[in-house]
């Protein structure tokens, strides 16, 4: 579910697609999964709205965090 495992999964799919023992039917399923994953990852990377917060006090015990500006 994390970003890193998703990227790793796409890499794995690309390898499997390349493998000669993958049947056409399997490859179509893999291809669809890979396209879906890569598109959603790209969306996360490019369309997110930047989150900026600020830590108010210098207290080393606790951080009072609020949105910045």
């Amino acid at each position, binding site marked *: 579910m994390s970003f890193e495992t998703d*990227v790793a999964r796409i890499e794995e799919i690309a390898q499997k697609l390349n493998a000669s023992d993958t049947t056409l039917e399997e490859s179509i399923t893999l291809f669809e999964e890979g396209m879906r994953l*890569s598109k959603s990852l790209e969306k996360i990377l490019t369309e997110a709205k930047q989150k900026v*917060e600020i830590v108010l006090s*210098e207290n080393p015990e606790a951080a009072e965090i609020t949105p*910045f500006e």
Partner: protein
Amino acid sequence: MNDQLKGELTVSELTHLIKQTLEEGFYGLRVTGEISNFRPSSTGHWFFTLKDSSCAISAVMFKGATWKVDFSPKEGDKVTVIGSLDVYGARGTYQIKCDSMEKSGAGDILALLEKRKQRYAELGYFDPKHKKPIPKQLHTVGVVSSPTGAALRDILNILQRRAPSLSVLVLPATVQGDSAAQSVAKRIKQANDLLLCDILIVGRGGGSIEDLLPFSEDVVIQAIYDSEIPIISAVGHEIDFALSDFAADLRAPTPSAAAELVSQGFLDTLQQIQSLRAALVKEMAYRLTLASQRAKQWGLDSLQRSVLSTIEKREYVLANAGNNLQLELKQRLATASGRYEIAKRELQALNPLAILARGYTVVTDERGALVKSAKHSNVGQILHLRFIDGQRKVSVEE
């Protein structure tokens, strides 16, 4: 020269001699004084007077040199300039033409920084083996800087553009003045104590060498050295430096450059995903081409054709066979029925009853023997006549 001075001189000749003497004899001067009567011109040159307790000298700094000065001089500033003498013949005045200017004592500061740098280097604080790698996959980047400074604004702009999914946590710090070093160090420590982020950018925008000093203080160096979170030092402009640059895991020439370094991993990942997708598409297209070629070889069309042609062949044979069978049957039937008719006719022809039907009779004697000739019967003899529909007993009369 002496010969020239003995003769009669025009003002120009004298001025030329003075100019030559002063300009060729007084260059690469390092002069310390107090700025007075500072008059920046609208064209960007600076005119002022350098003075000390008893003397004064006119000074000029042209536009081409002023941009290198990292502070705005004002009345009473004690500065050290490097320059040469310049004679202005039209007025018969001389002045010092400044190539560079620094606040007096900057040399002392640099020397002090150099000494401190040596000390920490010897202690191993700047050792490459202490440098932590900058993680590629980041979630939150902490920024220890002034919340109102240009540095933070630049960082936010660049991150927004290049890595909008990255969260930014501002740890506001005083970056100038006596409390700055403590403030910066505390924020670095707080980020570590509370594990607030994956990476820290510690820095500020450009300023004078004194302005940047907090980032070279012991507390800051120690805090950076102790940090578990990787730190990028981003202090001032490209040409500036602070000891935080050496203690940090990575030095960025400017705060903007730090933001670019931090977001590089995101651009790489994006590129990786895009090229992976291109590979998927290419591989799939190849497989489909392969499959469709195979389908053409063994595919529906040709399969149908081959099945049909097999069926057609069989049908032909079948149809042929059927036809033959029928024909033969018919022929046989025809032959048989022909023969039957003939046989029937033969039979009928041979049937004595049929002959009787035509009106003939069969004559037998009393013993039942055929009487084929009149000679074989006598008068008075009893004969039997056999008709088609019965018998009669007759007696021969003549």
